[in-house]
């Protein structure tokens, strides 16, 4: 089991989160996805969508990152590294669970070698003492570039969520 690394100093999370709104560095963490979401993530960085417009930048190390773009259903072989990558991030740490796989395990939510989506990972992280400050789930298979950008906006509190839990009674005809 992972023991959390010693933490140095304390951070004013609210202040840091406020500063994040103008500059957000993302680390792309593939946990066993089919590559569909991953290439859409790259797509978001390239000329057509160009998220540098919003101050978003892709970085190569979780130590530099503010936000993890998590794709894939988290397979058991990657689990170890995923936990370590998230643990290596400085706080405030944010996670964007992308695609059906990241949100709910996708088409493989119930196979023998996947964990089945970020919610299950979060439980595990909690038990290991690794805290994640904010999570946003972005469904899609693969997730559309527009949806990723919207997800980031939602994460930073710049947009309002448009879907809500609904429970509808069937109308007898």
């Amino acid at each position: 089991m992972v023991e959390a690394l010693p933490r140095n100093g304390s951070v004013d999370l609210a202040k840091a989160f406020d500063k994040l709104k103008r500059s957000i560095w993302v680390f792309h963490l593939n946990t066993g996805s089919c590559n569909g979401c991953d290439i859409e993530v790259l797509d978001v960085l390239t000329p057509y969508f160009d998220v540098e417009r919003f101050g978003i930048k892709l970085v190569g190390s979780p130590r530099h990152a503010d936000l993890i773009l998590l794709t894939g259903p988290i397979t058991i072989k990657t689990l170890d590294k995923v936990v370590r990558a998230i643990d290596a991030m400085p706080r405030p740490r944010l996670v964007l669970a992308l695609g059906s796989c990241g949100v709910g395990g996708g088409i493989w939510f119930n196979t023998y070698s996947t964990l089945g989506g970020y919610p299950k990972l979060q439980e595990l992280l909690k038990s290991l003492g690794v805290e994640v400050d904010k999570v946003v789930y972005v469904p899609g298979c693969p997730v559309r570039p527009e949806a990723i950008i919207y997800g980031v906006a939602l994460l930073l509190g710049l947009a309002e969520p448009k879907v809500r839990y609904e429970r509808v009674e069937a109308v007898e005809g």
Partner: protein
Amino acid sequence: MDFITISLISFFAVVSAFLPPLLDGVERKVRAKIQSRIGPPTVMQTWYDLRKLAVKELKMPLGGELAVLTVFLSLITSVSSIAYLTYVLITSTLNPLSIATLIVLITASHNLTLLSSVSTSNPFSIVGSYRNVTLLLVNEFGFMAGFIATLYALVRLSTNPTPLSFLAYALGLAALIVSTYVGCGRLPYDIHEAEPELASGALIEFSGVALGTYLYTHLMMRYVFSLLVAYAISTLIIGFTNALVVIAVLALLTSIIYILYGVVAAMLGRTRVDLGVRTLFTLYVSLTLCLVVAWLFA
């Protein structure tokens, strides 16, 4: 030293502190244009990045306390090299001693950042720094040769302008431009930090304030190098005149050179450490040989 000099130096030092991130922002905008993108929202983007890093958590890398310390040391030397350079320019006290001090300050800040990454435990860091050391060994040679030759030729030009001393100046300037370009850590010579497969190489383990400081120092260093080139060029054009004019021209020219370097970098790919060293070595040796020949005949 009178009051005006002191205030001029401090004014220029403050400008120099704010200018590099701003120039980086402009460079990012320009690069985005070349890549048919829009780029960051404003030229202030790099400032926002640094401000954010300042308030983020600092995760100490394994055995990395020394690394963090050296990053801060490197910032101090970098700032003092700018201040000292300004002092030298304004007071026109360019002599062998001041040149030596300048070179020591600049290379020190350069090498301290390297030391910082060697002292972490991450192999990516170590490989990144190892590469940079290899590159630096060659480049420092070119830098010193170019810097000294240019300054010497400038002095000669101001007293006794001959075509040959002008040639010497041109050769020295060429070496200076190439070596400062490499020293800036720009493509294709940014192999210590940006090999994508090495996950940002030298700075992989830094986070929060340490990363911010490292990046800031890096930008400062780019600025210092551009400043040197700007100085070498502007002195030829305007000579040693009024300090205020010198500073205004310098700031402008430095910015132009900074951006120009950025534009060149956007058009190139990354070299490999053996290829890069070989190219630079050949270039410097031939430039130095030409210089020696030029001097002999002058």
